[in-house]
């Protein structure tokens, strides 16, 4: 399981600094050094807090919350990052030591061990991202199944209320911050530089650091279950004052976990922006970029502008909790609704952060498997920009019943409903792309069609939620649970699956099993609808969300939903089995199994260590299927011929 072809490795045999084995290994960047640096930094953090409290005679000196916060949630993760070597280059530079000239030892993967160290190769980082996010997808999914087990019958069966509240809170936090957002970042990490004709991302070391922040955030959120009083249990929205003043210590694990995941997001987004703006191959104008690149460009804009707001809201909430400030606590003059305004100013754009990259994947998959150019390419790109701009003007539609100024509701309703226009343009353009095409129904295309149909339902229920009086009736009920799952599962997760199957041959050099892929799709599609569609009815009838117990009249539907959800959960096993066995022993993939025109398919599978032997010259649009003699790019002649020979039609 290597992601680079071996021919290029010869010049770059690893020559670690300091060399040698034995004790020196303990001082070299890597997991071994992280094993002692993590507790060391944790201990330093612990000592600082004790010292400060002792000096100020603040009793008790061993106060749990500040100690856990500083030692375990801030200092220890920094020690871990330092230990694995994420800061080595910058630390050497800052301290005036000779820095290592870039010898590319941190590039490419020759064995599985290379995935467990700080690697600066965007392709390795992409795979690291995807494997990590799939792990947290499984963890979040298991939590969801526990939630459904409890909800199968009215009354409280398996979990006490605090634990139950923790289950759905951690489920949502993991799915959003550790699966959907970073899984898109992982796919884009692998694909975007290749699509641009670039050798790597603009800042490879920053790229490596952004990945290693993720496991920290995920482990932090999961480990909150081990805290006294249980995991954070105020929903992934963490509303003040419940989360900021009335929760056990687990709450700050969410506050702080979001910081690490958010920092990772911001770094990656900056990296994408600089890469897309400055590292396009000659001839790759903005209007010749594949729509996946456009999608990640617009997503990165959203991330860079919006994420600092959630960072702020979580810091303030945590300060209220640990330091007894009064950002949101009315007892000290704070304003609880302030939290919601700041939170949703990020978290509504975050919905598009979780959607636009999926739109990009859809444009790639639908064009390639319909064998037609994307219908209305420029309007597709412009509608992405329209969504970015409008996306910042709708946040308060999450707050129609929050008690905010009531005049704000109508303008926010209008902007919210208007977003249906650019979104509609995209859906109609995909349909028009398929019209009169030559449709091939491989797994990525099936997931694309599944996405189209499910996202239409999610979009329409979104329009319903946008209409204020309907929202007043159904907000905070299961209707909202149904809506977000149609948008984030039927939307985002289906596109992530489409992307994973589509680029699997490019990433691993092997084909996945098509029959298992199709089986996975049908199980997911059916299981998904059986699970989430009935939730609409529960919601309009008035069952509140986030409850362990409910009125007996909702019992039958809930039992049905729980049974369906276990089927949906089982469908993931097919996906896992397919991915693992195909990665190990699938058929060898040709360079371009889908006969696609974008640049990543014009190099070998997996691509060479520096992507292109020679920087390609882009000469045309990316989706010129059916145009006689059309070309997207000209590659060095030797390479192009090789690819032609390897190419096997679908």
């Amino acid at each position, binding site marked *: 399981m290597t992601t680079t072809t071996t021919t290029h490795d010869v010049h770059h045999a690893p020559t670690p600094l300091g060399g040698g084995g034995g004790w020196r290994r303990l001082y070299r960047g890597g997991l071994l050094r992280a094993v002692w640096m993590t507790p060391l930094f944790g201990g330093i953090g612990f000592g600082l807090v004790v010292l400060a409290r002792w000096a100020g005679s603040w009793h008790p000196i061993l106060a749990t919350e500040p100690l856990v916060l500083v030692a375990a949630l801030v200092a220890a993760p920094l020690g871990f990052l330092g230990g694995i070597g994420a800061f080595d280059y910058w630390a050497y530079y800052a301290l005036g030591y000779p820095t290592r000239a870039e010898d590319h030892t941190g590039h490419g993967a020759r064995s599985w061990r290379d995935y467990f160290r700080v690697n600066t190769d965007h392709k390795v980082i992409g795979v690291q991202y995807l494997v990590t996010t799939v792990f947290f997808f499984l963890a979040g999914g298991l939590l969801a199944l526990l939630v459904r087990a409890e909800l199968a019958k009215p009354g*409280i069966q398996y979990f*006490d*209320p*605090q634990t139950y*509240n923790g289950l759905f809170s951690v489920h949502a936090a993991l799915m959003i911050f550790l699966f959907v957002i970073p899984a898109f970042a992982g796919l884009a990490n692998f694909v975007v530089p290749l699509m641009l004709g670039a050798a790597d991302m603009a800042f490879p070391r920053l790229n490596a650091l952004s990945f290693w922040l993720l496991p920290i955030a995920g482990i932090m959120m999961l480990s909150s279950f081990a805290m006294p009083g249980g995991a954070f*249990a105020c929903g992934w929205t963490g509303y*003040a*004052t*419940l989360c900021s*003043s*009335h929760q056990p210590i687990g709450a700050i694990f969410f506050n702080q976990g979001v910081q690490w995941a958010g920092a990772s997001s911001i770094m990656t987004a900056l990296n994408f922006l600089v890469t897309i703006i400055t590292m396009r191959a000659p001839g790759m104008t903005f209007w010749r970029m594949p729509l996946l690149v456009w999608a990640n460009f617009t997503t990165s804009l959203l991330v860079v502008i919006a994420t600092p707001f959630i960072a702020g809201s979580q810091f303030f909430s945590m300060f209220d909790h640990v330091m007894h400030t009064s950002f949101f606590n*009315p007892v000290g003059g*704070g304003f*609880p609704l302030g939290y919601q305004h700041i939170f949703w100013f990020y978290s509504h754009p975050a919905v598009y952060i979780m959607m636009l990259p999926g739109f990009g994947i859809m444009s790639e998959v639908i064009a390639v498997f*319909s064998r*037609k*150019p994307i*219908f*209305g*390419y420029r*309007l597709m790109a412009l509608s992405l920009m329209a969504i970015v701009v409008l996306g910042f003007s709708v946040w308060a539609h999450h707050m129609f*019943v*929050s*008690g905010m100024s*009531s005049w704000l509701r*109508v303008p926010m*309703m*209008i902007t919210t*409903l*208007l977003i*249906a*226009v650019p979104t509609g343009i995209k859906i*109609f353009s995909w*349909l*028009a792309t*398929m019209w*009169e*095409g*030559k*449709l091939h*129904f491989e797994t990525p295309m099936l997931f694309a069609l599944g996405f189209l*149909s499910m996202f*239409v339902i999610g979009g329409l229920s979104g*329009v*319903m939620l*946008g*209409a204020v*009086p309907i929202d*007043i009736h159904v*907000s*905070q*009920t299961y209707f909202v649970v149904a809506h977000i799952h149609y948008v984030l599962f039927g939307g985002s997760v289906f596109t992530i699956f489409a992307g994973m199957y589509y680029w699997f041959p490019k990433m691993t050099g092997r084909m996945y099993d098509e029959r298992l892929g199709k089986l996975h799709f049908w199980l997911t599609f059916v299981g998904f609808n059986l699970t989430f569609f009935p939730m609409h*009815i529960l919601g*309009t*009838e*008035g069952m509140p969300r*986030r409850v362990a117990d409910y009125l007996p009249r909702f019992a039958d539907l809930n039992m049905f939903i729980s049974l369906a959800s276990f089927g949906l959960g089982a469908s993931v096993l097919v996906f896992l089995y397919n991915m693992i066995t195909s990665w190990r022993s699938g058929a060898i993939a040709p360079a371009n199994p889908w006969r696609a025109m974008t640049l990543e398919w014009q190099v070998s599978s997996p691509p060479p260590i520096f992507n292109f032997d020679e920087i390609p010259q882009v000469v045309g649009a990316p989706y010129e*299927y*059916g145009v006689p003699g059309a070309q997207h790019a000209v590659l060095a002649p030797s390479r192009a011929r090789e690819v032609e020979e390897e190419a096997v*039609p679908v």
Partner: protein
Amino acid sequence: MRRGSIVTLSGIGVIAGGIAAAVALLLPWLPQDASREAGRTDFLFWFVIAICIGIFAAVAAVMIYCVLHFRAQPDDHEDGPPVHGHTGLEITWTLIPFVLVSAIAVTSGIVLSRNDAQARDTLRVDVTAQQFAFTFSYPDAGNVKSPVLRLPEGRSVELYMRSLDVIHSVFVPQFGQKEDLVPGLVTQLHITPDKLGTFPLECTELCGLGHALMRTQAVVMPAKAFDAWLRKQQPASATAAATHTLSVSGAKVFKQNKCASCHTLAAAHAHGKVGPDLDKLVAYAKRPHKPLAAFVRQSIVSPNAYIQPGYQRNVMPQTFGKTIPKTQLNALVSFLVKSAQKASKTKG
């Protein structure tokens, strides 16, 4: 486009729309409405549903048609026609959704402003929420208090709502109205009940571990019966502190303050699981070595003074010392002590 394909396309569209309409009409979507506001919201709901079914049918028709008609044969390696776009079509599918969402926005705006408009003789009800119970009081009738929201039929009612701790929310599905109660703010909710009956009233904003059980009822009564009920409550409560003697029943105080949402107590038929089991008070009091009555009183007035292992601090409201008048508190304590002693005897 051939005429045949238009016919097929429309046919698929009608079938898809029909299925969607059947799902919309045959399944029990909305609860029976019991307020004028819910009636208007239901109209808007069906208006938007009709538009949604139209769009869904159109998209489904095109998609299904594509899947059926444009499927490539396994050995077909050709590309489709290189169509890059069509300005007229693109303008059309920008404008049509724009018009539809504008219609939805205008209709919603009208419904919203009517739903919020108060009539001249609006009845004021004050709502106070705390973890995990609501209290309703009627300021026009000497602040009569009730754990159940009683409303007269056909009269415009405005709820003025406060929260003492975290954010809660008042929702009666049959009224179709909902609003959060935010600490530090007074929020408002307008309801004009127009059907008699008893409806569930639930907290819909996650408010902590007892959230799922934070439920009570809304009772819509004939206007005369409502007035009579108010009058009956009034004398007792207008001079509550003065006239309440020890005769006040501890069981009633237990019920009024919604202790049952969190605690188990056989004598009061309470089965809450959030807080400590009050049938075990005798055993609990042994750990801090306090006399039972003093222990019970302290646990009500300052609940953080002693926390039974397995339970958390700051869950029980710390305001009962102020909100429960002294005579009622005495009654509650003696009621709890007696019930707990009885429970421990039956077990022992």
